[in-house]
Structures are given as structure tokens and as C-alpha cells.
């Protein structure tokens, strides 16, 4: 819920960065263990900080991007990804598409197709309407 205030002070931002670094280390170790779906779950979890601080947002995106690009088998990913992650995953996919980077867009489109099949247009609407999670 939107309990965090809209703008964070500098030390709050620092705390968020520390959290993201911690998340990043966890994802790296999961990727080394060849658990890309677990890594993606970790990336999507620990809700993205509700902050307008661009530094936090891009640091968080780098981590999620790393996990997102590690997904090779999209169908396999969905068989072990719970529906509760769908809305937030969709939101990150649009963030990925907005980068305009070719490999990122390719990957995001690939996942987007499967995700829309599974979660429907409602999922896209929820990701668009979501104002709590800034990605």
C-alpha cells in the first residue's frame, strides 16, 4: 500500500540502494546455480521501492533486467511462476520495451506474448494503472 511518501530523503535512498545491492547479490548466486526463474522471482519480489529517485529506479531496473535476460525457456518459466507475479512482471516488460535496446526488446516481446496469453488484457491494464510500484 502507498504508505511510503512520494519523495524520499537522501538517506532513505541510500537504504534502498543497499537493499537493491543485496538483491543483486542474491540474484547472481541464483543464476550461478542455474535457477533463472528463482532469480526472476527474487527480482520481482521485495516490491520495487516506491520512489521518484531516478538513481534507485535505474539501479533496480538493472537488477531486474539481469534476471529477465537470463530467462531462456519462456514456457518453462511460466510453469513455475505464480500468477501473483504477473502484474508486476508486465510492468517491467513495458519498462524493458521503453529502453529501445534491441536484445532487451526482443526478450520482452517474447515474454509479453506468452504473458498476455496467460494473464489476458486485464494484466496489461493493471500494470498500466499501478501507481504503487514505480519501476
Amino acid at each position: 500500500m502507498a504508505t511510503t511518501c512520494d519523495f524520499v530523503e537522501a538517506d532513505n535512498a541510500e537504504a534502498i540502494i543497499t537493499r537493491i545491492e543485496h538483491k543483486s547479490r542474491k540474484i547472481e548466486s541464483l543464476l550461478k546455480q542455474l535457477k533463472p526463474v528463482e532469480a526472476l522471482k527474487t527480482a520481482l519480489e521485495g516490491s520495487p521501492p516506491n520512489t521518484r529517485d531516478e538513481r534507485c529506479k535505474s539501479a533496480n531496473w538493472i537488477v531486474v533486467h539481469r534476471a529477465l535476460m537470463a530467462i531462456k525457456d519462456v514456457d518453462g518459466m511460466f510453469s513455475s511462476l505464480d500468477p501473483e507475479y504477473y502484474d508486476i512482471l508486465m510492468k517491467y516488460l513495458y519498462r524493458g520495451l521503453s529502453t529501445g535496446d534491441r536484445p532487451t526488446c526482443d526478450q520482452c516481446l517474447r515474454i509479453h506474448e506468452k504473458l498476455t496469453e496467460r494473464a489476458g488484457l486485464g494484466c496489461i491494464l493493471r500494470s498500466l494503472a499501478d501507481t504503487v510500484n514505480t519501476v
Partner: protein
Amino acid sequence: MTAIAVHQFAHCITCHAWSPDHSMVAFCPNNNEVHIYKSLQDNWERVHVLQKHDQLISGIDWSVRSNRIVTASHDRNSYVWNLEGSEWVPTLVILRLNRAALCVQWSPKENKFAVGSGAKTVCICYYEQENNWWVSKLIRKRHDSSVTNVAWHPNNLLLATTSTDGKCRIFSTFIKGVDTKDSKAGTFSDSKFGELIVQLDLSFSWAFGVKWSASGNTLAYAGHNSMIYFVDEVGPSPLAQSVAFRDLPLRDILFVSERMVIGVGFDCHPMAFAADERGIWSFVRFLGEKKTASGSKYGSQFSEAFGKLYGQPRQGVGNDSVESSRLRGCVHENCINCIVPLKEPGGRGSTIKRFSTSGLDGKVVIWDLEGQDDLSQYL
């Protein structure tokens, strides 16, 4: 198949309402008029055109007991229409708004009506005998955005509103001289006019289509993010459930029983939601997924037996490729924005078997839940 009659009345319909005996339907064909059609034998004939508003009519409600029509319009006024002889005579209600009126509903006792508006305001209007005048009392500074829908609690005192600020709010509308203190409002009977009883912050996007169940125990409303919210024990500590669904968002909803809700909206198909034994709400299925007898001109008195006759053969057909037939064989071809119950005249029960929907495709469709085995357990 549950759609038993489809009537193409206009190019687009913003809202509609039925006469107490369901022999007439009033709707706004996306302009400043209200058209009233009456069913005569096999076809529908236009019997009245109510012309008084200057701009688009956004809400119509037809009171059951007093047979009065109230309309709300973007011209910021309301009219109460009384049938005198064969003419509908309008009475202007000055709402004192500076933005469009968006929705209107009679209270259960029909001594008040509520208007939601783009002026972040709700008007509660009541009749003042001595001045022969409808007075509008405003609930101001409570909404942060337009009020999209209003719904009266069966106790005639509480009013629920949804707004484009994403919130659902419940107000007391106690008016001295109109309401009596001894009404069965329970704990809320002492509240003053305009007092905010509870504010529900479940949605983060526009909220639409608030409704109470017949008992007033459950409240439901839809969010523009393809979610529907159910609230039990409305009061200091409400119990809320959010249900996400996979299709386009809802614009309006209707409780057909304490355990089942029909939602209509941008998906063009009514959706059924139901609560299981533990009270957990979930999406059940779409209504009318199979191809329908479109263009059939049957009256609302259409017998139930005939409806079954039409329904069952088709029910067997459409099992193949649900997805594609769902898109082609729509009953409605555009967003549905209005759903109205068709209560049986003598029926005292709280379940509703029939209802009608209208939408941007200009159709009024009558639906019947009779003979739907999977849904009848929730009725």
C-alpha cells in the same frame, strides 16, 4: 444462452431504465432526449420523447412505487418527470453544480434521490411540500474527483459513491423532516447529513459501478484496472476482497443474489462472479458466449418456456473454439455501460433472475439466468 431478447433501439445508449411493470423502457440515445418505448404485441413503439435537457443525459432512474422518472444531464440539472394524463410533466431540480451531473438514483423509499457529478460533489435531493420544490443538498469537499456512481443502502440512509479518485465512500444522508430517527439504520442512525462513514482505498485507478447487495451486507465496486472489490461488514473495520480478472475492466455491476454479481463493461460480455461457501469471491464465467438470436424482437413478457426453447439447442453447439466464437458471436458489440435489474412484479425474494444491459452499440439486451445449472447454485 441467457440473452432472451435483443433490441436495437439506437446507435448508442448512455443509460436506460424500466417502468415499474416492465412494459416500457426509457433510454437516452446519446443526446439530450429521453425516448420511452412501449411493447405492443410483437414490436416496440416509441410513445414519448422527453425533451427538456440541453445536453447529454447521463442518468435515468424510474421509481417503482411512485412511477416517476428522474434524469441527470451534463447540463448540470435534473428533472423529475410525473405522468399527468398522457403527458410526462417535468419539474426542474436545480442541483447547484458547476460541472456535469453523471449519475442518478432514487432512494429505496423514493423520497430522495442522489446525483453524482463531475464537480466532486454528490447532491441529495428531496421534495419540499410547502414550496412545491425539489431541494438539492450537497455533500461537498469529500471527493477528490468526479463521482461516477451512487448506490443507496436498503436502509434509505447510507449512500455509497465511487469516484475517479479511485475511492469508494459511504455517507450518511439523514435529512431532518424527511428521514425519521427510528428507521432500521442500526448503528448509523445517529449520523449527521454528509458524514463520511467509511472510505475504502482499495483501488488506485478510477472506480465505477458501486452496488449494495439486497440485504445491504455486502458492497461491491469495480476498478478501471480490471479488478472488482467486495466489501463485507461495512463499518469501522470492513472486510475487503479484491478479485483480479483477465479481461477488460467493468463499468457497472449488479447483485443478482447475496452470492452472485454480474459485471458489465468494456469486454462486451457480462461476467458472473460468485462467492463460495467460505465467502471467497471469484470469477465464474461469461454470460452469452455462444451465438445469439440477434435482432429477435420479443417483448419483455417473453415467456420463460420460450426462452428455454431458444436457449438449449444453442447451448449444445458452441463447445468448439470458445475464444473465437466468443468474439464473433457477441450479443453486445461495444462497451456495456448500464445494467438494470428486472424484478418480478410480485416477487418479494431478493434474487434477481432477469436483468437488462445497454451499451454503446445501442442495444438493450434482456438476460435470464433461468436454466443455467452452474450458476443457479449461487442464486
